[in-house]
């Protein structure tokens, strides 16, 4: 039996956390939640994670800070930025800060699941090579 992939959902909207948790559970992932950047970084330190779904605009520490903080680390989870910011500049900035993918809100839940699988596959390919 394969272990479940661990996904951290980071968003300041409780309804987004709630719905994504249900969807990811149903899709066979093991989700955990963080409502701000500070909690997200603590969760990442506490437990090994495979993927982080990261919102950008959050109070206190925002998504940009989390990305920058993770950038310097050797061991870090794959980050998929999920933001309502649609500008090319934001997408470019996120990818330059080490994000594996950039998904704009509103997204289709199925597409998001597919994107998580793609990013995981890319990450494993990266490790085996």
């Amino acid at each position, binding site marked *: 039996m394969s272990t479940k992939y661990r996904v951290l959902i980071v968003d300041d909207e409780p309804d*987004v956390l709630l719905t994504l948790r249900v969807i990811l559970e149903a899709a066979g992932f093991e989700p955990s939640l963080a409502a701000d950047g500070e909690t997200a970084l603590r969760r990442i330190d506490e437990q090994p994670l495979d993927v982080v779904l990261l919102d950008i605009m959050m109070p206190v520490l925002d998504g940009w800070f989390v990305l920058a903080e993770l950038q310097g680390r050797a061991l870090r989870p794959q980050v998929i930025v999920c933001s309502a910011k649609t500008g090319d500049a934001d997408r470019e900035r996120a990818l330059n800060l080490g994000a594996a993918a950039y998904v704009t809100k509103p997204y289709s839940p199925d597409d998001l699941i597919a994107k998580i699988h793609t990013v995981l596959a890319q990450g494993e390919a990266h490790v085996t090579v």
Partner: protein
Amino acid sequence: MDQLPGEINQRIKREARVAGISRRKAPSIEVIEQRRMQLWILTVLVVVALAAASALASWAGPESSLGAGQWILRSAVALLGIGFVAYAVEKELHLHRLLRLLTDERVLNAAYSQSLDMNRALSAAGKALNSALELDEVLDAILASASQLLSARSGSVMLLEDDDYLRVVAVRGGHLFRDARVRVGESVAGRVAETRAALLVNGDAVDLGLRDASGDGREDGKEDGSAMSVPLVNRGQLLGVLNVRAAGSVQFDDYDLQTLSLFAEPVAAAIAKAGLYAAEKAHVVELVESDRMKSQFVASVSHELRTPITSIRGAVAATRLVDDSAQRNELLDVIERQSVRLQGMVEEILASARMERESNDAPVMLRKVDLASLVRLAALDAHLAGRPVTVDAPAVCEVRADSEGLRRVVGNLIENAHKYGSIPVTVTLECDAEHVMLSVVDSGPGVPVAERARIFERFYRTDPNGVQPGLGLGLSIVRGVVESSGGSVYVEDAPGGGAAFRVVLHTPVDDRREEAHVN
């Protein structure tokens, strides 16, 4: 000579020919004087010679023994004398006429030359004025040109302010202070502004108050001097006054006053143009800022609409996946909550658009509204949405307003207090016979003084890149509704800290209010 009218030129040539002046020599006053002198000397010599000849003939023999031949000789000598004198008189007449023509020509030449100089100077001044757009540059060019044009020692430009005062806006030389003010009608500059007639003051400038007007009456102990003030009028509108003062003992004359008056026309046009340019520039800055806020608004709308849609789509997908009814209900709540949020935003955008249309077209209908019950209902809604509010209001408190708009005003202010301030939030109503004051007070950090006016602007956000959701419309809607109801809204510091938003509205004319107080 070529600038002289052809007619005078022709006459000079004709008279010169008749007067017997050489064609190779240009006729000059000196040549004519020389010619006249020659003519009269010759005449005198001829007359003397003829008289002598006649006397000699008489002396030759006794009167009685005059023969017919002698009589004929004496008659011929007399006739010759008369003929020569007639010739000399005729030449003298022509020479005199020529002399007058040449004098006229000199006067005309001098006038033309002076006029040409003035035109050249005015044209150069006009060019200098046209090359500047900013008011300060234009004013510098005006004073530099005026000084050059009239060899003035100092000058100043005063512009009309509030129709009653002239303010000094530019100074060159002299001891005048910028921003000094002169009342229209007082002193020389003030009188020039009032009468719109140019004024030349020689000698007694100080007595006439020019020193007060242009501030440069006394220098090195001298109080006398020569100064001019001309009105600056563009398209019939008085813009101000231009003053110049002569250097040292130089005295201006009517010709200088005429020159300065002519110069005042392009000066007034240039000042008017600079004013238009400044207004246009300010308008562009305003447009750029408005454009920036609109772009930011579009980005905010995009972001704010996407967030609830994300939750709704997620919740719909999740509802299909769960079997547990409690969990399903929780997800349905998400859908409901986010739909309401979406609806609120759409209504806000529509209200803002409608308000803009109404302010352009027809005014809103004002009705009698019980603000007290409206506040209590808004407080109830806020409680249900998780935003607790304390209400302090009389049982009834009627105002004249747009009722639908007023509901939004109260809702927006309460929402704002929770979003940007912190609890406790209190809504207070204070009513008197004519006015009602609605206060929404929070316990947050308050609004910085610099932002107190701007927060009511459409699309303005205190924290454009911040995390607080919002479109930048809420307070602009509040102001729009309140003002269309004839009221006013402002923000100040609450007595105990935090922000206090105050809305002042009018009571209906036939207002009867119960004084019962509920909390």
